[in-house]
C-alpha cells in the first residue's frame, strides 16, 4: 500500500464527503482527521525504517509522471501536522456548531490535504499546486469569523498569498525552460550557477518569504491571524506559515545548494534578526492576546531565518547536522506551543467575551488549566529548559559561537529576554485580581538597594566573572 498517496488522498476524500453530507460534517471531519493521522503515521514509520521513500504516481516514471517523496525532514513536519491537526480537530468539534461547522470541516481538511501534499511533493509544479491549495483554504478559513475585520484581513492575505505563488511559479517556469524537467531531484542534479538559476532562486525564495511572513513582508500576518477563529488561528500560525518555511528550507538545502552565496544567507539572517526584534517589540506592546500571539509568530519565524548564514559558514559534518536538527526542533516546538497558545486564548475569549490583556485579571482562578497552558506554551516560546526550543537555541548559539558570527548571539539573547517579558506580562495579568500599581518602584529608598543586590547576583556576577580569576590567582594566570 502506498502510504504517501494515502496521506494526501484521505483528507481530500474526507473533505469532499463532509461537503456531500453537511449535517454530519463534524463526525466525518473527526473520522477524516483520524484516518489522515493514521496515514501520516504509516509514512513516518516507513521513513523511520527505510530512511527515504518515494513513489511515482499513476505508474509513470519520473520525467513524465509526478513523484511523491518523503525524507526525515518531511516526516518530522508531517508528524507535527498530524498531532497539531488532531488537537485542532478535537477542539473545533466543540468550538464550532451549525453553519460554521458546515463550512469549517471541508476547508480544514482541504488545508490538511494541502499541507501533507506540500511536505511530500517531489515535483516543482506539484508544489505550486499545493501552495495554491494551501493559500486559498487558509484564506477561506480566515474569513470564517464573518465580521468585516476578518474579511478585510483575509482579502489582504489572499492578495499576498497569490503574489507569492505567482512569483514562485515564475521561478519554476525559468527552471523548467532551462532544464526540461520539473522533478526536484532531477533539476537539482542539472542545476548550474548562472543568471537563470539565480533569477529563479530569487523569485522562488522571494515569493516564499512573503508567504512565510519574514520581516518586512509580515504586514499581513498579525491582522489575519488575530481576526480568525481560534482553531483557525492555531492552524495558520503553527502549520501554514511553517509550510512556506519548510519549502524555503527544501529549496535552500536541496535545490539551490550550489548556488546560495554568503551574501544571500546574510540577507535572510539580517531580515530574520530584524523580525525577532520587531516582532517581539510589537508583541510586548500588543493590547490583545491574539495580536500578541500573532506578533510572537513573526518573531519566532525570525529565529528560523538565523540559520542560513550559519549553514553557510559550517562545513558539512556533525556541526551542520546539529544545526539542521536544531532548526527542525525549533519549527516543531513553535508549532506545538503556538497552537496551544491560540487554542487557550480561544477558551479565554469564549469564556470572558474578549482577549484584552489588561482585563485578564482573575483568569488563573477561573480557568486554571488554561492558564497553565499559557504558562507551558510561554516556557516553550521563551526557550526555558527542558523545552525543545531550549535545545534548539542552545545549538543555534553553539553554531554562532563556532562560526564566529557574534551578532546573532546578541539578537537571540535580546529576543529571548523580550519573549520572557511578554509572556510574563500575560501571566502576571492572568494571576492578579486587583488592578496593578501605577509605577514600577513604589518606595525608591528601600526597594532600590534590594533590587540592586538581586541584579548583581542574577546578572552582574555571571557576565562580569572574569576579574575573579586574576584576583584569586595573584593576577598572573587569568583566563
Amino acid at each position, binding site marked *: *500500500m*502506498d502510504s504517501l*498517496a*494515502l496521506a494526501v*488522498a484521505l483528507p*481530500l*476524500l474526507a473533505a*469532499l*464527503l463532509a*461537503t*456531500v453530507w453537511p449535517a454530519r460534517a463534524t463526525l466525518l471531519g473527526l473520522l477524516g482527521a483520524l484516518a489522515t493521522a493514521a496515514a501520516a503515521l504509516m509514512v513516518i514509520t516507513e521513513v523511520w525504517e527505510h530512511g527515504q521513500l518515494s*513513489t*511515482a*504516481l*499513476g*505508474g*509513470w516514471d519520473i*520525467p*513524465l*509522471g*509526478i513523484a511523491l517523496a518523503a525524507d526525515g525532514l518531511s516526516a518530522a513536519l508531517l508528524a507535527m501536522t498530524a498531532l497539531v491537526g488532531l488537537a485542532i480537530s478535537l477542539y473545533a468539534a466543540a468550538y464550532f*456548531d*451549525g*453553519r*460554521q461547522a458546515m*463550512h469549517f470541516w471541508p*476547508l480544514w481538511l*482541504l488545508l490538511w490535504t494541502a499541507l501533507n*501534499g506540500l511536505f511530500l511533493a517531489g515535483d516543482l*509544479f*506539484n508544489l505550486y*499546486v*499545493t501552495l*495554491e*491549495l494551501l493559500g*486559498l*483554504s487558509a*484564506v*477561506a478559513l480566515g*474569513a*470564517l*469569523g*464573518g*465580521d*468585516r475585520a476578518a*474579511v478585510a484581513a483575509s482579502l489582504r492575505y489572499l492578495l499576498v498569498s497569490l503574489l507569492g505563488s505567482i512569483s514562485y511559479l*515564475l521561478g519554476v517556469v*525559468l527552471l*523548467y*525552460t*532551462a*532544464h*526540461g*524537467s520539473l522533478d526536484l531531484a532531477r533539476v537539482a542534479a542539472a542545476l548550474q550557477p*548562472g*543568471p*537563470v538559476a539565480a*533569477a529563479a532562486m530569487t*523569485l522562488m525564495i522571494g515569493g516564499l518569504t512573503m508567504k512565510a511572513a519574514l520581516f518586512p513582508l509580515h504586514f499581513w500576518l498579525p491582522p489575519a491571524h488575530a481576526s480568525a*477563529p481560534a482553531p483557525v488561528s492555531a492552524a495558520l500560525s503553527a502549520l501554514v506559515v511553517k509550510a512556506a518555511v519548510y519549502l524555503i528550507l527544501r529549496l535552500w538545502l536541496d535545490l539551490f545548494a550550489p548556488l546560495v552565496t554568503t551574501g544571500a544567507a546574510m540577507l535572510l539572517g539580517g531580515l530574520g534578526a530584524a523580525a525577532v526584534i520587531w516582532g517581539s517589540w510589537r508583541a510586548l506592546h500588543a493590547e490583545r492576546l491574539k495580536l500578541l500571539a500573532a506578533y510572537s509568530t513573526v518573531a519566532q519565524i525570525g529565529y528560523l531565518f538565523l540559520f542560513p548564514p550559519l549553514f553557510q559558514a559550517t562545513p558539512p559534518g556533525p556541526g551542520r547536522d546539529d544545526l539542521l536538527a536544531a532548526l527542525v526542533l525549533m519549527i516543531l516546538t513553535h508549532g506545538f506551543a503556538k497552537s496551544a497558545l491560540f487554542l487557550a486564548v480561544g477558551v479565554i475569549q469564549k469564556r470572558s467575551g474578549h482577549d484584552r490583556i489588561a482585563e485578564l485579571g482573575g483568569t488563573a482562578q477561573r480557568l486554571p488549566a488554561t492558564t497553565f497552558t499559557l504558562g507551558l506554551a510561554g516556557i516553550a516560546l521563551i526557550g526555558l529548559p527542558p523545552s525543545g526550543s531550549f535545545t534548539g537555541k542552545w545549538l543555534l548559539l553553539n553554531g554562532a559561537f563556532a562560526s564566529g558570527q557574534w551578532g546573532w548571539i546578541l539578537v537571540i539573547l535580546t529576543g529571548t529576554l523580550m519573549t520572557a517579558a511578554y509572556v510574563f506580562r500575560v501571566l502576571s495579568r492572568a494571576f492578579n485580581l486587583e488592578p496593578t500599581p501605577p509605577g514600577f518602584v513604589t518606595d525608591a529608598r528601600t526597594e532600590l538597594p534590594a533590587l540592586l543586590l538581586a541584579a548583581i547576583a542574577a546578572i552582574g556576577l555571571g557576565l562580569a566573572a572574569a576579574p575573579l580569576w586574576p584576583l584569586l590567582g595573584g593576577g598572573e594566570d587569568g583566563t
Partner: protein
Amino acid sequence: MTGVPLRKRVSVKTLLLVLLCGWLFAALLGVLLQFGLDGQSASVGDALLERNAETASANAVTSVVVSYRGFDTLGEVTVLFLAATGIGLLFGGRRPADGGILGASGTPPNEMVVTGVRLLFPILILLGVYVVLHGHLSPGGGFQGGVIIATAFFLRMLADPAFRLEHGRIGLLESLSGSGFVLMGLLGLTLVGTATFLGNFLPHPVAEMGRLLSAGVIPIIYSLVGVKVGAEVAAIFGDMLERDARQSADPPVEASDA
C-alpha cells in the same frame, strides 16, 4: 484637471512600488532575453510523444493532464472547488453592506437575449457534453467542456430571472464528482494490476486508440472533471448573479454565531 496638487494625487509610496515592480520586470525580461533557452525543454516533450501510445489516448495533451500529471489535475480541480466555496462564503452568507452593485432583478432581459439564449442553450449543452466526452480523442476535455456547460447555464440565468440553480444539488454534484476522482485514484492504488495512485486500471489496448471507448479510465476521470468544473463555474456565476435576488427574497442569514 482638478485643483488637487500633484503630490496629493500621486502617493510617493505607490510611485516607488511601481518603479520597483518595473525594475524587477525589466531585470527578469533581461534574463529571459539574454539567456533565452529555446528548444532546451525538448527532453520531456519528446519522451512524452514517444510514449503517448501507452495511454491509448489519441490526444497527447489529455495524456498529460489526466494520466501523467493526473495528480496535479486533482489538485487544480480542488483549487477551483475552494475558489467556488470561497466566493460562496463571501457573496452568499452575508448581507450586502452598501447595497447591491447591479440592479439585475430590476430590469427584465430584452427579447433578443431571451430568444437568442433559447436557441443557444441546447446547442451549448450538446457542445459541452461532446467536448467533455471526446477529451481523449480531440482537443478539449473536462475543463473546456465544463466551462462551456457552465456558460450555457449562465446565459440561461441572464435570460430568465426566475431560473435558479439549486445550491444543494450543485454542491452535491461538485463533491460527488470530486469524490469520484479520488475514488478512481484509490481504486488504482488498491487493485493489484496497477497498485499506484491514479493508475489506469481498466484495459487500454493501443489497438483501440481513437475510439470513443478507449484509453481506460481517462475518459471516466475527464468526465468527472467536466461535471465538477461545470458545477463549480456555474456556482460561481450563480453566486455573483443571485446575490441581490436572494438577499431580498430570503430573511437575512444569521452571521453572528461566532
